[in-house]
């Protein structure tokens, strides 16, 4: 079967098609039109496609008749520093994006788990945000518009390239955190920032209780921070918890806020890191999310975080845990069982806290789904949306659990 799929793909793909390691054909399209041609055909034939970025976040193990690899779409199409917007193809890595933006003194304040070899598409599809979400918001806040190819090969544009826009329904939102079920993101218009004049990073270490307390004090003092991230001992290697505090802005502003951090702190001391050390620490936090087969995120408010961290500690251990103690949200990386995830979801649902499966081997994803049980009335809407964007379910995704 895959030989004939390989042959047909070669005839329609208008781009390189190779036979992948497991004999599954791999298409590496270099335009939205090429993806559309392939998916349109796949939809008619009833084939199933796995979409891969750089393969550096989600395991590339979902069964499929062929693979679409977005690596051929890796360009930063444009950067407009005067407008603080950029257009980027989905296969571009964060590293490439950072470099292109830096040349224009711009910056994309997204620091997702996994690090900068990830493709933009994978960050959008999984809505994985890092510590900077404290100041700069969730992934969706950075996206002004998208070009998407649907499962049946239609090219749909949503949003625009201006920072404020309410024309038409906001279809972009469906793609972000949609885990690939609603189309293949080909290109995105991003809202970027000017590189801040100053940055600082300070860390304190201590017991969990001490650091939770420090974070509460900083929050109550309304100190203007870029991030306020708690990391478990296992995450950074060591036997103490770490609280990482970043500030960005004007030099006097940053200095004043860091001074305030130190004066508000009680019983903990915050040590400043130089730029090199700071970026190594940030990289370590991002990389640690790959040190285990499963990554989960809990949508919990800052106020509910201490309780939730306790629950995780008692049930599956703290493992590699990080928490934004300002914006809320806890990430946990380890090797839980499917039963653990189900039980935790059940428990958290009572507190209105969703537990999203961000990364796991296919069998695990399929068994528990990215979201677990939906809230009242959501399941039929999600199913109809899926059929709208991918009528033949060509795109392999585990947005719903098998049970």
């Amino acid at each position, binding site marked *: 079967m895959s030989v004939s799929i390989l042959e047909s793909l070669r005839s329609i793909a208008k781009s390189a098609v190779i036979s992948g390691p497991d004999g599954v054909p791999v298409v590496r399209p270099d335009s939205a039109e090429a993806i559309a041609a392939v998916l349109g055909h796949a939809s008619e034939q009833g084939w199933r496609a796995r979409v891969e970025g750089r393969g550096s976040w989600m395991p590339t193990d979902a069964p499929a008749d062929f693979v679409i690899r977005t690596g051929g779409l890796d360009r930063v199409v444009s950067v407009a520093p005067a407008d603080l917007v950029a257009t980027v193809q989905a296969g571009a890595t964060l590293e490439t994006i950072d470099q292109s933006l830096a040349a224009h003194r711009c910056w994309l304040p997204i620091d997702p788990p996994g690090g900068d070899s990830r493709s933009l598409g994978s960050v959008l599809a999984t809505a994985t945000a890092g510590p900077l979400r404290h100041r700069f918001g969730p992934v969706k806040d950075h996206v002004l518009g998208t070009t998407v190819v649907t499962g049946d090969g239609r090219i749909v544009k949503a949003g625009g390239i*201006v920072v404020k826009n309410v024309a038409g329904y906001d*279809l972009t939102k469906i793609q972000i955190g949609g885990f690939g079920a609603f189309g293949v993101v080909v290109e995105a218009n991003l809202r970027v920032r000017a590189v801040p004049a100053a940055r600082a990073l300070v860390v304190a270490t201590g017991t969990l209780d001490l650091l939770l307390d420090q974070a509460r004090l900083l929050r109550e003092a309304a100190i203007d921070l870029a991030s306020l991230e708690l990391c478990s001992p296992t995450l950074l290697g060591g036997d103490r918890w770490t609280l990482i505090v970043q500030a960005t802005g004007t030099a006097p502003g940053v200095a004043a806020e860091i001074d305030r951090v130190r004066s508000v702190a009680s019983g903990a001391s915050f040590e400043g890191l130089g730029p090199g050390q700071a970026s190594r620490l940030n990289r370590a936090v991002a990389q640690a999310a790959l040190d285990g087969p499963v990554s989960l995120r809990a*949508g919990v408010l800052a106020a509910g975080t201490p309780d939730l961290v306790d629950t995780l500690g008692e049930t599956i251990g703290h493992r590699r845990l990080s928490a934004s103690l300002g914006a809320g949200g806890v990430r946990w990386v380890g090797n839980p069982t499917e039963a653990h995830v189900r039980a935790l979801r059940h428990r958290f649902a009572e507190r209105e806290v969703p537990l999203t499966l961000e990364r796991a081997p296919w069998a695990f994803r399929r068994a528990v789904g990215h979201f677990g049980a939906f809230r009242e009335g959501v399941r039929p809407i999600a199913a109809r949306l899926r059929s709208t964007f991918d009528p033949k379910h060509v795109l392999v995704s585990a947005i719903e659990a098998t049970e």
Partner: protein
Amino acid sequence: MAPANTDRPDPGLLAALGAIVGPKWVRSHLTERRPFEADGLPTHASVPMAVVLPSSREQVIAVLKLLAERNVPWVARGAGTGLSGGALAGGNAVLIPLTRMNRILSIDPVRQRAVIEPGVVNARLSDAAAPFGLQYAPDPSSQTACTIGGNVAENAGGPHCLKYGTTTNHVVALEAVLPDGSLARLGSPHGEPWGPDLVGLFVGSEGMFGIALEITVRLVPLPTTIRTLLADFATVRDATEAVGSIVAAGIVPAALEMMDQACIAAVEASIYAAGYPTDAAAVLLVELDGATASVEAEAALVHELLRAHRARGVRSAETATDRARLWQGRKKAFGAMGRVAPDLVVQDAVVPRSSLPSILETIGTIGRKYRLTVCNVFHAGDGNLHPNICYDRRDSALADRVARASAEIMEACVAAGGSITGEHGVGADKIDYMPMIFDSTSLAMMCDVRRVFDPANRANPNKVIPIHACREWREPQ
């Protein structure tokens, strides 16, 4: 005045609606329906067939179930301040104002969340949050009248959305009734979507996906320090270039608003006079907020940039009263312009910020070509223009010129890479502009997504998407 809608609902329907909400909350006489014939947009009007005013979630659900059974279209309405004709109901549609559902259900200062009914007036929520040191950040200029349900439907913005984001950045969860009367709980208090981001999709859907019944929003701390500056310029170009330089310097002011000479004149001649220099070609209102040291540092930098772009004077509000006065002129500018002529078209378009200098010149040229006075008052920091035109709609030749000038302005904004609306929505007014920015496949997809929520197209019919763009219309089965 719109032609009288002589469609009479069948008495059985009226009685059934009355049984749900109480007969006095069903309006069926023409004189009672007339007040609902328009929203804030002067160019469109249509009288609804009936008006029903529910006061509880149970009543809304029962009303929608009844209308579903009888296959009757309907339109939700907030305060009717919309500027795109979004809350207009014509033909046999029933209008459902939600203004009686105006309870703030909870404010939780620790979690920084509020849960409200859709009819809560925007400013009331911030007033209620203020004692806790919190605010609801999106602040449309209509905030003393418009409802948060209407804000959700339009994804409303406001002056302070430059820094704080628009409605979509502040709504974390929604309980919605779909057109078939079923309930859906979207999102979570934290904001993590719990599935595909249906809250993000619902916000800005202009009342076509269902009715937002219970809205959970983020509250943010009131800033410790606020600095408000007013700069005046001899040319519009200097003012717009100053805007660009502030943005490019990486400063994100809480607000960055501009008013041109025609607008200043209208404000200063009204009871809202704010002390703007009437000989200025434009003024910029720049507000910085946050922690004291950063605000001071940014204010110094902004001051320098304004001077470097030839600001004639830069004034800083010294007291809260000063600040309120500077803002009053901006927030009441539409009202002030409204007094100049019987009618006012408030336009809404967006351009990339770097295009502001040239687009304002183009708008000036278009105004002269059609012999119209265009007053510009707008959210300069995010490139969101409001070119407003005062006129008298009884003069049909004049009204025609206004329509043609508006369309030309819109074309110029789109050509600059912009959008046809930044905050007022498409509604009925801009439906014909949609193909200017979306191709037919993308428009057809919007139709399809609408049908996910409303297969019978009964919720707010004939808005936002031109019907000929929908697949079922193009490809009759």
